[in-house]
């Protein structure tokens, strides 16, 4: 059996080279064929079938969306395996990756498994995701204590939306948003929504949609 051909997509040179080193340390199992700086054209690289596995960072600062790129790759070449990697514990990203049919997800700092293990299992045909996104603290509250609805509201809050705009985005009334906001303030101990938004963003639990290239 030949080597698994790996494409590394990360906008940081050092990260690309680190992953290259990790892949090289696996000996004859893997071979890095492309180091790509942006997700935006990543789908083109797989067209001629020269790639078996893609390691792709979630957060690209050039505005390209890694999730969209990964989904395009899976649509063009379903046999190509894709593993998303990130160091940010954003609560929704694992769900987003699952929804788009991505094969594996790895947290750079918090995952118990090494990225090589995840790569091996994904190449073997498994779909490998951590049991849960890493727990993080938002003010006094642990991310486990927040409901999915509250996390959605936090994400909209980090995008700088008003209650009315949050209501429109999440299909709820401004009064319902206010109620959720009050619960969030009580849970986190934050004094106001600005502090809450800052705490939520600093914790990494939520990342603004504009930061993801969406």
């Amino acid at each position, binding site marked *: 059996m030949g080597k698994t051909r790996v494409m590394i997509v990360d906008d940081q040179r050092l990260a690309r080279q680190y992953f290259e080193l990790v892949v090289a*340390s696996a000996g004859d199992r893997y071979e890095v064929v492309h180091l790509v700086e942006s997700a935006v054209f*990543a789908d083109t690289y797989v067209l*001629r079938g*020269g790639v078996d596995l893609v390691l792709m960072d979630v957060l690209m600062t050039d505005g390209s969306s890694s999730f969209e790129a990964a989904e395009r790759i899976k*649509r063009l070449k379903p046999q190509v395996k894709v593993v998303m990697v990130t*160091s940010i514990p954003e609560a929704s990203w694992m769900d987003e990756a699952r929804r788009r049919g991505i094969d594996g997800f790895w947290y750079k700092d918090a995952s118990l498994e090494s990225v090589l293990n995840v790569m091996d299992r994904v190449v073997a045909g498994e779909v490998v995701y951590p049991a849960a996104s890493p727990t993080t603290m938002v003010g006094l509250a642990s991310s486990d204590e927040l409901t999915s609805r509250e996390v959605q509201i936090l994400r909209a809050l980090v995008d700088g939306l008003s209650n009315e705009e949050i209501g429109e985005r999440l299909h709820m009334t401004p009064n319902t948003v206010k109620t959720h906001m009050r619960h969030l303030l009580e849970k986190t101990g934050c004094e106001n929504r600005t502090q809450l938004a800052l705490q939520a963003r600093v914790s990494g639990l939520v990342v603004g949609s504009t930061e993801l290239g969406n």
Partner: protein
Amino acid sequence: MTAIGSFGTLVPGVLGFVSLVLLVVATYVLVETWMLGLGRVRVYSAGAFAASLLLMWAIDFACYQVTNPSMLVGPPTYVLSVLPVGLYVVLLVVLIIVIARLAMLLRNERMARITPDSVKEAIDALPDGVSFSSVDGSPVLVNIRMDALAHDAFGTSLKNERTLWGRLCCGACNQDYAVEDVDSEAGRALLVATDGRSWQFSRRALAIDGVELTETIAADVTEEHALLMQLDERNRQMAEVNERLRAYGRDLVQLTREEEALAMKVRVHNEVGRAMVALRAYERQSPDQRDREQLLALWHRVTHLLEDVGQTEMIVDDWELLCKAAAAVDVRLTIEGKLPDGLAARKLAVMVVHECLNNAVRHGDAHEVNVTCVERDGMTELTVTNDGNMPAMPPEETGGLSNIRASVERVGGMLAVQWSPRVMVTARYGLED
């Protein structure tokens, strides 16, 4: 029963006086009810008046008969003088009750009736300015507040409503006032005094009993306007905070990336340390135990890493990235002319070429993609061809191609796809940053 004539002059005199007073009151009630046009009450008043007159006449004649017995007028007056006094008293009491009741009805009617004076009095008491004027602007009814407001803000009392509205719409008011939010079509304008008092002027046409009138109201909205100003200020502050939050988010992304880079550097440092330990171990090992190839491979990886650690990330242009991607799939990407300078127009051009490149490789196994880009009449005209195999029949336009068509058409451009004699995609659009 004792006849009235038996009491001498005192009792008939008192009864006569009472009947006279009753007649005066009945006359007043009759006149008022006729003036107010009170229907059946007028008939009752007339009856009460007639009864009062007859009773007074009867008592007078009875008295006359008593005081001048020698001057007998005739049997009727005699009869009146011998009638019992109780009958007169009862008749008087009944008449008093009837006339009192009529007087009460009259009073109630007057209380309930709205007269022009009462209308004026009522609108003068309003805190808001109100005026009604004819179509030519002549005032029909103006309250004190509106008049005072016109005087204060425009230096004259309300002499013509159209003139006042014209001055309001063009903001021709005294220096202590300002006009805001004028909507002459909707008939609305806001007058704000420097001391904070505010009036919302609204104007509408009315037709009352076939007469066309213009109603103008100046509602005192001082409190509401102050609250609105506070709300605007808060919204402005909120928008500033939200913008700062977004900027903070961007900074935080950078910070996160720097943290990631630091973590990577730590890992690189660890790799170097591991290589050093391996080197020391190698030196301590006897020659037959040494694995030179393994040590060399480890150091090769470490030195490769260290070569780039100090280098800064180069910002790479989208077009260069696309050329690199094309080269990776063995496609030569060429361009004749140059891509648009504007960021948005350039991004759209690269997006179109990217999709064409993908389609050329997927469906035509192309190895050369040629782009022609010209600026004509402020529009970008982009043509993409390839050397790939011809499709047997035009493929269905789905996915990427339909997406770029939507993107081009969204900015008012057009996208044309020609399938023969070779595949050629042309996009034409004008897009400014």
